C-alpha cells in the first residue's frame, strides 16, 4: 500500500485508506477509484499524499533487509523458538520483494 504524492496520482488508482478532513470526517472512502475529477479535488484540498492499493514500496534492497535481519537475531541463535520466529520473519521479508 504505497503512499503517493498528490501530484503523481493517476485515474484508476484505488484509495487504500479513506481521505479524511481535519475534523476526522471521511471525504472519500476506502476503495474509491480515483477519477480525474477526484484527483483535482484532492489537489485542491492541499492534501500532500494518499494511500493507494498495491504492493508496498521497499526503501532498502532485499540483500540489505536480510543482512539487517541476521544482525538483529545475532544474540539469540539457537534459543528456544527463535529459529522458528526468524524463519517466519525471513520468509515474510522475502515476500515483500516478490
Amino acid at each position: 500500500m504505497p503512499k503517493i504524492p498528490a501530484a503523481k496520482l493517476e485515474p484508476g488508482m484505488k484509495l487504500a485508506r479513506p481521505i479524511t478532513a481535519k475534523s476526522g470526517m471521511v471525504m472519500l472512502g476506502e476503495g474509491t477509484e480515483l477519477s480525474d475529477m477526484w484527483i483535482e479535488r484532492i489537489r485542491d484540498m492541499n492534501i500532500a499524499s494518499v494511500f493507494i492499493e498495491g504492493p508496498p514500496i521497499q526503501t532498502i534492497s532485499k540483500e540489505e533487509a536480510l543482512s539487517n535481519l541476521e544482525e538483529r537475531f545475532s544474540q539469540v541463535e539457537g534459543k528456544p523458538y527463535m529459529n522458528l520466529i526468524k524463519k517466519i520473519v525471513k520468509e515474510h521479508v522475502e515476500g515483500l520483494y516478490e
Partner: protein
Amino acid sequence: MSNIDQKLLRHKVENINTLPTVPTVLKRLSAIIEKPRITMVEISNFISNDPALTSKVLKMVNSAIYGFPGRISSVSHATMLLGLNVIKGLLLGVSVFELMQKTMNGLYEHSLACAVVSRTIAQKKGLKDPEEVSVAGLLHDIGKVVLMLEFQKEYEAAMKEAQTKRISIFEAEQNQFGATHAHVGSWLAEKWRFPRNLIEVMEFHHRPALAKNAPLETAIVHLADILVRARGCGFAGENLVPAVHPAAFELIALAEADIKDVLKEMENNMEAAEDLS
C-alpha cells in the same frame, strides 16, 4: 551499579505533573486521567475542547490500528465504542507521540506496530477486549519516554552501553537506574488508575512468567515486542531481537500461518502510521 536511588526515581516518576521537561498537554491529561471517578462525559469533553487532540484521537480510532477504519466521526461515539480504559490509553498514546519522536526516534513506530500486532494476536486468540491489549502494546514502553525526559544523560549512557556491550536496553537500564522502563511504566499506569491487567502487562512484558492476573495478555505483548523487533520496525533503544520466553510462546500457541498473518497485518498498517501524527 546504578547511581540513582529507586525511591527517588519512583517519586520523580509519580510526580510527572511537576516535571519541568514534561509538556503541558501531557500534564493536563495526566491530571485528568488520575482522577478516581472520572466519567466518560468528562473525558469526552476534555478531548472535544481541544481541536488538535480531537483530530488526533479520531485519526487514531479510524486507523486500522483499532479496527474501525473510517467509521467513527465523533469523540462521544469513539468513547462509547472503545470504553473508558481504551480511550485513556489512546489519549496518552497520541499525547506522547511528539515526545516519543523527540526523545527516541522510532519509538512511536515501534509502539504502534506493537499495538497492531497485540490486537491481531488477541483477536486470533478470541480475547474479549482486543482493544485493551492493543492499548497495552501501544503504551508498554512509555517508561522509556519518561526516563529519557527526566534522565536524558543517564538514558543515553544506557543506550550506549546496550550498543557497545550488545546487551538489551532492558539490561542496560537495570545497570544505569536499578530499575527499568517496565517498572516506570507500571508506576505510571498505577498512578493513572489503569486496570490491573494493563499495569501487569507493562510491568512484566519482559518477564511474562511473573504475570498473575493477565498471563495471556502479558505474553501477547511480550511476543508482539519480539515480532516487531524481528521485523525491524521502528526503534526501541537498541537493534537486537530478545529471546522469546518459551512458556509465553507456548501459552499463546500460534500456528506458523497465524504468525505470518500477524506480520502481514503489521505491514499493512505501518505505512499508515506516519499519517497519525
